[in-house]
C-alpha cells in the first residue's frame, strides 16, 4: 500500500521489532506509525465505542487514530514514538483495561 520514495531508500539501518509477535525489520528513524504502514498494517486498533477500524492518519500527533500498545503500554500515539530495537508493537482492540474486575474481587 505504501512505498518509500526513492530518495528515502538508501542509508538507514534496520531495527528489529515485533508486530503482534511477528518479527519485522523496521527502519531506523521511523516512527511506530510509519513502521506499521511500511509493514502493511494500515489498521492498528478498533475504537472503544463502535468498534470501527482506525489506523495512522495525521502522522503528527493530532488525530490520535494511531493508538497502539507499545512494550505493554496501551494507547501510545504510534506517530510520536521512534522505533527501537526489540520493541513490541501490538494492535489493540476496543478500550484498554484499567484492571480486571473479576481478579480484584477475588
Amino acid at each position, binding site marked *: 500500500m505504501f512505498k518509500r520514495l526513492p530518495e528515502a531508500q538508501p542509508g538507514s539501518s534496520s531495527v528489529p521489532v515485533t508486530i503482534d509477535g511477528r518479527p519485522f525489520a523496521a527502519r531506523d528513524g521511523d516512527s511506530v506509525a510509519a513502521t506499521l504502514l511500511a509493514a502493511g498494517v494500515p489498521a492498528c486498533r478498533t475504537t472503544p465505542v463502535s468498534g470501527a477500524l482506525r489506523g495512522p492518519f495525521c502522522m503528527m500527533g493530532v488525530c490520535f487514530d494511531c493508538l497502539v500498545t507499545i512494550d505493554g503500554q496501551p*494507547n501510545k500515539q504510534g506517530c510520536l514514538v521512534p522505533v527501537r530495537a526489540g520493541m513490541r508493537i501490538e494492535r489493540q482492540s476496543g478500550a*484498554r483495561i484499567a484492571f480486571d*474486575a473479576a481478579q*480484584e474481587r477475588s
Partner: protein
Amino acid sequence: MSRDYDIAVIGGGLVGGAIAYGLARVGRRVALLDEGDVAYRASRGNFGLVWVQGKGLGLAPYGNWTQRAARLWPDLARALREETDTDISLEQPGGFHVCLSDAEMDNRVASLTKLVGQAGFERYAFEVLDRAALAARVPGIGPEVVGATYCALDGHLNPLRLLRALHAAFIKRGGAYLPMQKVEGIARRSGRFVVDAAGEQIGAAQVVLTAGLGNATLALQVGLHAPVRPQRGQIIVLERVQRFLDYPMSTLRQTDEGTVLIGDSQEEAGFDESVGTAITATQALRATRIFPRLLDVRVNRTWAALRVMSPDGFPIYEQSATQPGAFVVTCHSGVTLASAHVFDLAPRIAAGELGPEMKPFSAERLNVQKAA
C-alpha cells in the same frame, strides 16, 4: 416568522431546555432564546450525575423535590428516546459516596442521618457500607477506603446528549429555538412582555428566566430577585477503559462509553473559568486513593465550568409579584432536576401559578433580616 409567542424562555441550557420542552408538551407556543457561545454554559461543563444522596439539609422540600425528580427520570429518558431517538444513557443503579477516613465516615453518616430526620423530609433508606461490604460491590478499591454511603435513587447520564435531546424534542413539538439571541432588556407593555434580543423584539404573554448566571441581572428587570453567583467546578477526563465501575460515585463516574470522569470540586473564583493543577491534583490524588489502578490511566483533558449558586444553594422558583407572568427558574442541579422541570414545574408555569408546593423555593427565604 412569527415573533409573538405564548411564552418566551430566556436561556437555552438544561434548565431552559427542560422548561421550554415541558411548556411545549402542554401545548404552549414557546420561543427559547439562547445567547450563543460567549455564554458561560454550565450545561456544557457539568458532571452528569442524577444525584439525591445528601441533598436538602436545611430545606426538606428540596430533598423531596430531588427525590421526585429522580423517580421521574425514567419517564423523561423514555420520552426523549421516543421523540428524538436519542439515548441519553440514563442509569440509576444507586450511587456511592466513598469515605477515606473514619472521621469522614462519621461525618457523612451523621449528616445523612440529620438530613433524613428533618421535619417534612420524605425519608429514604441509605446504606452504610464498611470496607468489606463496599469491596464486594465495587472491585478495585484501595487500602485507604474506609467505607461508603449508598442511596438507591442516585444515577447518572450523558449531559451533552440530554441537552441536545431537550432542544430536539422541543423543536419537534413546534417550539422556536432562537440561537444567538442575547437578551438586552425585558419590558412590559399593556399586559404583555417585549423581549429585546439581538436587535429584534419578541412578544410573549409570559417570560421565564432560565439564563443561569445571567438571571441575577435579568431578574431585576421584571421585579424578581435571583442573587446567583458563580461557583467553579473542575473535571478531569481519563481515557476510555473497559467497564470496571457499575455505580456512579459523588466524585467519580465511568460513562457508558468507558470514559472515567473525576469531578465535584467547588471553588469561589468569580467568573474565572480557568483550570488549575492546585485543584485537579487534589481531585486526581483522591481518585487514585479510591482506585489505585487508575494511577497508570492517562488524563485526556481537564475543564472548568461555573455552577449557578444561590446564596443558600437551593433552587429559586418564583413568579414576579409586580409583573405577573414573569418567572425565574434557577438551580445548580440542571441535570438532576430536569425531569421535575419538564413534568411538574413547566405545567405550573403554563397554568400561571406555581402553587403552594413551590412556595419553599421562593426567593423570599433569602430576605431574612440579619440581626444587628
